[in-house]
């Protein structure tokens, strides 16, 4: 990790922020769904908290790594890694969207559809960041 570029460290921070904040959201939202809370508005405060946590973790994390190491800017390797990682993770979001449309046709309550969409976005982001880190560590040819 000490030899990681600024972009790689940034990827770790983004992965941690998404995993912790949205992961925490899904733990709470899961309990609410099991308790029968079916009004989508009830989930908004928890979601806002998760977004604030994501922003806070990213700001603090990026300030810390900027102090520790000189930001080198994005180069071609960073861009290629980001493109390839997105290419390998976007299917998760697409699957979630198509499943959500199917659920809407089947008149499934919107609270479930909304959370399915959010879950697919969450998993796609996690897979995307994890794939980036894999390419940074193992190489990409």
């Amino acid at each position, binding site marked *: 990790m000490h*030899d*990681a*570029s*600024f*972009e*790689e460290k940034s990827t770790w921070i983004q992965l941690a922020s998404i995993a912790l904040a949205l992961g925490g959201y899904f733990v709470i939202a899961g309990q609410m769904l099991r308790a029968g809370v079916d009004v989508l508005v009830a989930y908004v405060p928890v979601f806002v908290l998760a977004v604030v946590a994501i922003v806070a973790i990213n700001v603090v994390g990026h300030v810390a790594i900027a102090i520790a190491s000189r930001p*080198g*800017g994005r*180069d*071609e*390797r*960073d861009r290629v890694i980001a493109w390839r990682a997105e290419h390998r993770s976007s299917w998760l979001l697409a699957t979630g969207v198509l499943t959500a449309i199917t659920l809407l046709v089947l008149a499934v309550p919107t609270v479930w559809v909304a959370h399915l969409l959010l879950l697919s976005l969450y998993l796609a982001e996690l897979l995307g960041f994890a794939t980036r880190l894999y390419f940074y560590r*193992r*190489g*990409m*040819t």
Partner: protein
Amino acid sequence: MSAGTRVTNRIRELRFQSGEMTQQALADRIGVTRQTVNAIEGGKYSPSLEVAFKIARVFDRPLEEVFHYG
């Protein structure tokens, strides 16, 4: 030399011959990060043609004397 690609290179050797040029010095001259130079040297990343030409120009060598394929 490289583990993951059929593109091999002599960058480390040429850096040594250029007065122990550091990876950071080479990276600064071709406009990438030191980690990217390290990845190219180690065969973990095949650079774009543009970056490959820039590297060859730094060492004042033709491209095929720096990079090999096969």
